[in-house]
């Protein structure tokens, strides 16, 4: 016979069978409940967390790239706008200058015209005054001259008065 007579490990001992059953079942129960269960859950959770984090990072990276692209576009747009604005400003400036020039000219012309009219008015008034003065003086002189001759001649006095009147009307 191949089996040893006291090769006792080959003879399943009843007590050991019972104890192994108890110990293993307890081990399975307790480990499953307090160790392997929670560990498996935690591992699963951590793995999904890591996956989520990776996914999120990837997403963030993509978003970043998109944002960058948009930024560049914005910058380009802004530059174009700036150029436009500058160009517009130049035109406006030129227009304003031209307008200002035109207005200044017009103003100047008006002032000159007004001044001319004033001068004309003043000249007329001055001439009138001179005429009056000259007429007075001439009368005075004529009076003095004539007084001696015309004191007795009423006809001549009438004529003189009539002449003075004509001068006044002019």
């Amino acid at each position, binding site marked *: 016979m191949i*089996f040893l007579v006291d090769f006792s490990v080959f*003879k399943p001992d*009843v007590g050991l069978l019972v104890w*192994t059953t108890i110990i293993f079942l307890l081990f399975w129960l307790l*480990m499953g409940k*307090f160790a392997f269960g929670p560990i*498996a859950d935690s591992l699963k959770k951590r793995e999904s967390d890591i996956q989520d984090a990776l996914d999120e990072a990837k997403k963030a990276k993509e978003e970043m790239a998109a944002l960058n692209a948009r930024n560049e576009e914005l910058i380009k747009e802004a530059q174009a706008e700036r150029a436009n604005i500058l160009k517009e400003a130049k035109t406006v400036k030129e227009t304003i200058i031209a307008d200002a020039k035109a207005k200044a000219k017009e103003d100047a012309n008006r002032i000159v015209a007004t001044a001319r009219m004033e001068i004309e008015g003043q000249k007329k008034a001055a001439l009138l005054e001179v005429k009056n003065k000259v007429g007075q003086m001439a009368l005075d002189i004529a009076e003095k001259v004539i007084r001696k001759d015309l004191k007795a001649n009423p006809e001549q006095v009438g004529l003189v008065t009539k002449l003075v009147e004509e001068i006044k009307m002019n």
Partner: protein
Amino acid sequence: MRKFILSFLYIAVFALISFAQDQHDHSGHDHSGHNHSHQTQNTQDHSGHNHGAQDHSGHNHGTQDHSGHNHGAQDHSGHNHGAQGHSDHGHDHHGPICGEERHHEFDAGENAIHHIADANVYSIGPLMIPLPCILYSTEDGWKTFLSSKFHFDKIGHGDGHQAVDRYVLDGGTVRRITDTTFPMGNVPISGFIHKEIDKRHTSFVCYNNKLYPTDAKSTADGGLFGGGLTSFYDFSITKNVTAMMIVCTLLFFMFRSVAKAMDRREGMAPTGLQNFLEPFVTFIRDEVAIPFLGPKYERYLPFLLSIFFFVLGLNLFGQVPFFGGANATGNLAVTAVLAIIAFLVTNLNGNADYWKHLFLAPGTPWFVKIILIPVELMGLFIKPLTLMLRLFANITAGHMVVLIFVSFIFIAGKNGSYLPGLGVGIIGSTLLTLFMMSIELIVAFVQAFVFTILTASYIGASTEEHHHAEHAEH
């Protein structure tokens, strides 16, 4: 490759068993402190070899000496060695038979078997630590006491010097005196005598210069391997039970702390023990559970992890030198329980598809069915049987090889009497043992893994949902 290694190990274990058997047959059963029975029986059979205790001082006990010895059963044919002979107390004993110390020849096979066996004492190095005994016999009922009550030597082989309610401790194992004339209570005994009667190893207790036969504890092999039900059952916390308790407690606290750390340090990088144990868990989950069980793996993961760490823990614990060397996974009882539980988990979760395939083998012609269905049904039971035997054989073989390599020191050194041989033995044995222990370390992991992956594949096959399921693993 794995199959090759496994078959190699099978061959190794059976070679070792038969080797040990030879050793057993050709040499005496002397443990230190034992009196050898043959001294009383060798008058005509052993001409030329005198085994009387008084002759041993000058006797050469080298192995070559044993060729002429015949200790087989036929040897005893002329003698009255039946148990009834001893209970009659009519046996004729020559001279004093009990209580004598004498040298014993070294027997590597027996030594190895002694060390891989379960015991009611826990040995740390040469120190023997008592363990609780819980014994039941139909005659006396339950008895509970600490094995120190047997008064075994603190340093020795675990032979008790006192009988407790007819129980004795022989070589670290409890036996029961069946003779009702033996007194109950605490009785000092003078020793043990081992004999083979009808190829059955029997141990006798020496008390008052009389021999009392003893019963081994009941075993569940149904007498297949020389065991069977006897007059008592041993439900003691044995060496293996202690080892299982230590390993399970240790594993529980280790994994509990990891589970707590994961909870407490959520969202943080793992550290320390967590870093060490997590890869094992993820390995079993990703390489074993998910490939075989698919999306429903979560239900079976705690079971697979329990199996894996239970087996691995005990494999490794049994390999720690000088720490009991509890050979739990190398004991058929332990692997049988694991295999039965795996069998139950597999078949209690088996779905309709699985049972249909098993009993009807759909899609095959009737003449194939005649062969296939019995094969499938046999496979149902062969699967757990191979699970049980594979683990047992691998671990037992490894332990026996290591122990025999260690024994090489004593063999080469002729038990300390031949110094050059001792030197060669120490060097050779150290190298061989180192080599074997590293192999055993690999085997410890491989076997735990193999047990788990096969269990997973069986569960996977029994719970598979689609139609053309394969029952590949046999």
